[in-house]
């Protein structure tokens, strides 16, 4: 299977200017690749830098050193040095992010929140809405909520709306940031099936999953992030 994502010598540190310029090293020399149809799970203790790696791939955090290479058609783009509109273009077409936290937008209904990424990829309103409803239904979000803005939903409901939003569109690369945290067993199983379906479609995935069961079911490979720790390297 072709390589979709390759991290080469990636390093990151935070400089906290408000705390006297303290430098907090996060990771160094991160190197791994992800093939189409493969799910790589980042392992290691809390604070090892798993989330930071995911955020750098998405362009949400800056990458201080190294390259993050993404295959787009027959082009290779380095996220680490890409200009903002290039990164926005990647997020539209190539890299999806499934996170736990929904940033609600006033007055936008749950089904529209979910449909938006698919419509942005060129689907019609009707197709977007139908696909959104099917996903919300699979994730057991009650039908009476679909037309309401999610701002007032419970935490679990918001999380499932966000999972539906993350899975709806066709991204060749999908980043999973603890998508099953705090879900019940039935909904965890739905997420596992959604991931399996993405694998069949050749999607390359990188995930953070603390749930041992889910991890065993979907991980093709585990990359231990602790070995990229700056202290480990020193």
């Amino acid at each position: 299977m072709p390589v979709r994502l390759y991290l080469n010598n990636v390093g990151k540190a935070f400089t906290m200017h408000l705390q006297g310029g303290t430098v907090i090293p996060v990771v160094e020399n991160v190197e791994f690749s992800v093939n189409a149809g493969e799910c790589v799970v980042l392992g290691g203790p809390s604070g090892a830098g798993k989330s930071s790696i995911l955020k750098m791939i998405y362009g949400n955090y800056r990458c201080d050193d190294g390259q993050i290479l993404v295959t787009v058609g027959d082009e290779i783009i380095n996220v680490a040095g890409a200009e903002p509109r290039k990164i926005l273009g990647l997020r539209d077409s190539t890299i999806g992010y499934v996170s736990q936290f929904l940033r609600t937008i006033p007055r936008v209904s749950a089904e529209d929140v979910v449909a938006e990424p698919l419509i942005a990829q060129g689907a019609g309103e009707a197709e977007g809405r139908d696909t959104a409803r099917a996903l919300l239904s699979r994730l057991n979000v009650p039908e009476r909520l679909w037309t309401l803005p999610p701002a007032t939903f419970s935490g679990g409901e918001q999380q499932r709306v966000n999972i539906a939003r993350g899975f709806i569109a066709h991204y060749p690369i999908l980043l999973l940031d603890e998508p099953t945290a705090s879900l019940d067993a039935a909904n965890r199983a739905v997420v596992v099936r959604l991931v399996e379906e993405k694998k069949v479609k050749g999607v390359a995935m990188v995930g953070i999953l603390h749930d041992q069961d889910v991890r065993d079911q979907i991980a093709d490979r585990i990359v231990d992030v602790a070995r990229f720790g700056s202290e480990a390297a020193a």
Partner: protein
Amino acid sequence: MNLFHAEDPLLQVHNVTRYYGDRIGCSEVSFDLWPGEVLAIVGESGSGKTTLLNCLSTRLAPTAGAIEYRMRDGAMRNLYQLTEAERRLLMRTDWGFVHQNAADGLRMSVSAGANVGERLMAVGARHYGNIRSTADDWLGRVEIDSERIDDDPRSFSGGMRQRLQIARNLVTQPRLVFMDEPTGGLDVSVQARLLDLLRRLVADLGLSVVIVTHDLAVARLLSHRIMVMRHGNVIETGLTDQVLDDPREPYTQLLVSSILQV
């Protein structure tokens, strides 16, 4: 969205500098703005945001530097070399300017319908019925009831005035809109409605926007890219969520950490 595919920028800003006597308003600001892109300029009062916005929108001549704009015919023109007639035409057709205080952008003594229709007449519309129906359509798009079309904006609330000002600006289908603290001074519930409206209109119309705000939540919701100013200089710039979630400069870290969490 054409933002990712456009081959040429709409606006190119080269080393724009403005002095007020010996004092710096803004210093050596350069950037490109792409079609469909929303750029937020943030920073505290006195950081030079509004000076820069006024230079960009030809309301204040820069002391040095150049600003080029891609006209509808595709030609790149230096804004400060346009004739006065060309500049005025640009300002009332291809551009919009949304002021913080709606009274600065509206004519308070004429009706809401006339405020919108006037911009249309400025671009040559003459048929009264068409002007009125277009004005009515735009009032609807900014959620102002048709019944208020003959009322003048003095009888409108702050939020309604701001929405009317937006309709007045967008009716000529501009490509570039400048906004100066468009949600400043409004109640939070009114702000949320206005922001949602702006977000939809900007996306639907594919507008390019330069928005000045000191409210980072507004910048996060509306903008693709952010430029942080301090003491007249651009100190940090980048993708909006990157600058807000991983701020690099000491001043940006201070700004981000000063937001009250709700």
